[in-house]
């Protein structure tokens, strides 16, 4: 009879959605495996089926209150294909890009200052009563003000290009429904220099922290992996559009310049009986070897270069930290994220100087299709939207691979690595909790997308035997709600 034990950490604090961590031990109390369980939303297929395709870019924003713009744009790109309007007008493409870089900027700023900096500036083991955004505001008020106002700047760009915060409608099949006014542009230009300075400062913080602590950070939750992202036709980083490139842990191309309309020939998804999330993998390598990372670290690894000067200089420094080799350091996500933050504000600067943003030619059309696939580099990584539409313009099928799903296996491996390095016996120490959370937060996961209603979810930790017996339990607060167990459909 097996005497394996399970350690359960539930849910993960400061990570979007409901998640819990189960650490499986063998009879010698060695870590066998870590499993990140999430409660995913249900009913997407039913929610989307039968809807007219032109509503989809608005409807999909309901999937996630954190990154509605990413879903909005990925769906719009898919619907561009449906209306044959994928060759956007210059104004439409640039307005969408501005919206997207605004999203990247605000999302990365929020993650770093709200989520990462408490861990980095106070230390992984600092009191959770201090190690939070309010603690940062108290100890580092200037930094906190920057965070708030960088986030606000990005949000205002989104509002100017997408419309209302909840009902963003800026991107439509084949284009956009408005351009950027001169008054809006000038408002953003007035604030731009300060935002660039703050972005440079943010890169400096992340870089200095990573370089100074490299010996400690390099092994933390780290492992070799494949990496995947879109890249431009010349290999440059491109967060809005491009072709798929996948590399192995040492930088060798697995595939390159793959048209994402053919993604199903290259990417497959595995279902495991213990998880609500699927496990994507590179088809040619199989599920055991083909899993991959997405997001800032992956993009810094896959891109041949960055086409904005400040971010490119930082990318070269980033590469130097690993002797110009592919970085497989989980904690380097933070540094990579800040380089992308700088890239985003440089792109915003370039776009704001482009008169095409004030153009009036907003929509393209062409030959109608019944299948549309849109892919974008969302803040957390590559986001796939795939739809089938019938002759009555109604959606009949949909498949999404969201960034956090692609990072599912890597997050499990990161937790397993941390558990192997920090677990002593079966005791769930505060230190173990902290380290597990730090490893997961590096990926900036969005586990369940924005049901946040009042009254849910403190942190619950249990040690459970293989028969379900609870050996130990630890909670930061009293009272908790057990997540729903139903399996999601359609995604």
């Amino acid at each position, binding site marked *: 009879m097996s005497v394996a034990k399970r350690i359960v950490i539930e849910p993960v604090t400061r990570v979007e959605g409901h998640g819990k961590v189960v650490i499986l031990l063998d009879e010698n109390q060695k870590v066998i495996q870590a499993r990140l369980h999430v409660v995913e939303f249900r009913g997407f297929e039913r929610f989307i089926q039968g809807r007219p395709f032109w509503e989809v870019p608005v409807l999909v924003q309901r999937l996630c209150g954190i990154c509605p713009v990413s879903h909005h744009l990925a769906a719009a790109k898919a619907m561009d294909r449906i209306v044959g309007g994928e060759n956007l007008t210059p104004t439409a493409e640039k307005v969408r890009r501005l919206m997207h870089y605004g999203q990247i900027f605000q*999302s990365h700023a929020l993650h770093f200052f709200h989520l990462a900096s408490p861990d980095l500036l106070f230390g992984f083991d600092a009191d959770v009563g201090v190690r939070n955004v309010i603690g940062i505001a108290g100890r580092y008020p200037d930094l906190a003000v920057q965070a*708030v106002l960088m986030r606000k700047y990005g949000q205002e760009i989104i509002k100017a290009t997408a419309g209302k915060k*909840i009902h963003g409608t800026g991107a439509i099949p084949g284009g956009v429904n408005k351009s950027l006014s001169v008054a809006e542009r000038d408002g953003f230009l007035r604030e731009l220099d300060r935002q660039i300075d703050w972005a440079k400062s943010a890169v400096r913080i992340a870089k200095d922290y990573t370089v100074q602590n490299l010996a400690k950070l390099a092994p933390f939750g780290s492992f070799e992996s494949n990496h995947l992202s879109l890249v431009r036709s010349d290999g440059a980083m491109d967060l809005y559009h491009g072709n798929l490139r996948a590399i192995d842990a040492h930088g060798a191309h697995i595939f390159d310049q793959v048209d994402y309309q053919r993604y199903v020939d290259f990417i497959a998804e595995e279902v495991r009986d213990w998880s609500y999330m699927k496990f994507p993998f590179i088809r040619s390598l199989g599920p055991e070897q083909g899993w991959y990372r997405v997001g800032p670290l992956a993009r810094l690894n896959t891109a041949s270069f960055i086409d904005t000067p400040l971010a490119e200089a930082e990318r070269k420094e980033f590469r130097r930290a690993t002797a110009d080799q592919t970085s497989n350091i989980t904690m380097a996500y933070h540094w990579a994220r800040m380089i992308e933050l700088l890239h985003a504000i440089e792109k915003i600067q370039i776009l704001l100087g482009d008169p095409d943003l004030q153009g009036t030619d907003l929509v393209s059309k062409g030959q109608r299709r019944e299948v549309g696939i849109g892919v974008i580099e969302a803040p957390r990584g590559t986001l796939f939207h795939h739809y089938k539409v019938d002759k009555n313009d109604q959606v009949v099928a949909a498949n999404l691979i969201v960034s956090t799903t692609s990072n599912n296996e890597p997050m499990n491996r990161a937790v397993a690595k941390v558990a192997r390095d920090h677990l002593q016996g079966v005791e769930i120490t505060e230190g173990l909790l902290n380290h597990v959370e730090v490893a997961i937060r590096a990926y900036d996961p969005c586990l369940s997308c924005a*049901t946040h209603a009042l009254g849910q979810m403190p942190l619950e930790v249990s040690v459970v035997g293989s028969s379900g017996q609870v050996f130990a339990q630890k909670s930061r607060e009293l009272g908790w709600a057990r997540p729903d167990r139903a399996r999601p459909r359609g995604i």
Partner: protein
Amino acid sequence: MVLYGMEQAMSGGREKVLLYGYGNPGRGDDGLGPALASAIELADLPGVEVDADYQLTIEDAARLAGYGAVVFVDAAAQGEEPFSFVLVDDAAAHHLGWTSHSVTPAQVVALARDLFGCRVPAYLLAIRGYQFTELCEVFSPAAKENLAAALAFAKRVLLEPGCCFARYLRSSGPTAAGPELGGSTWKA
């Protein structure tokens, strides 16, 4: 220090009330907050500005300056039916939340205080909901009734001269609006 975004807020007039509904309209009862905000916006009440979003985030701290009071409106997965109305206690801001990117009303108020020197009385209207996990844009029947009660309460209070929100709070402990306004345990 001149702060971006603050100048505009500061010109908004001290006595205005900001009603801020938040939640995801695509998650069943999670959309109660934005639904109430939308209804108040349609009512076009004098001295009331309305905003809505999927959730509260740190930049909302800069949004509070310039208002005489703020009323956050959210769905509640637990608690009193049909709704409760409580003072936001910024002492609760240091609690570690389980979400990554959103913050609580208490944290927004604390950030507004600590970063922008803005001390605005803030209240939370929490409308009880029941169905949060299914992707759908309709409310459960009971939540719909609770929303109607909360809306009637909000309109009545917001139309009062001076909007004396404190009248509707209990003197100690958890606070809620009274039965005559649709709440369960109010006393003046």
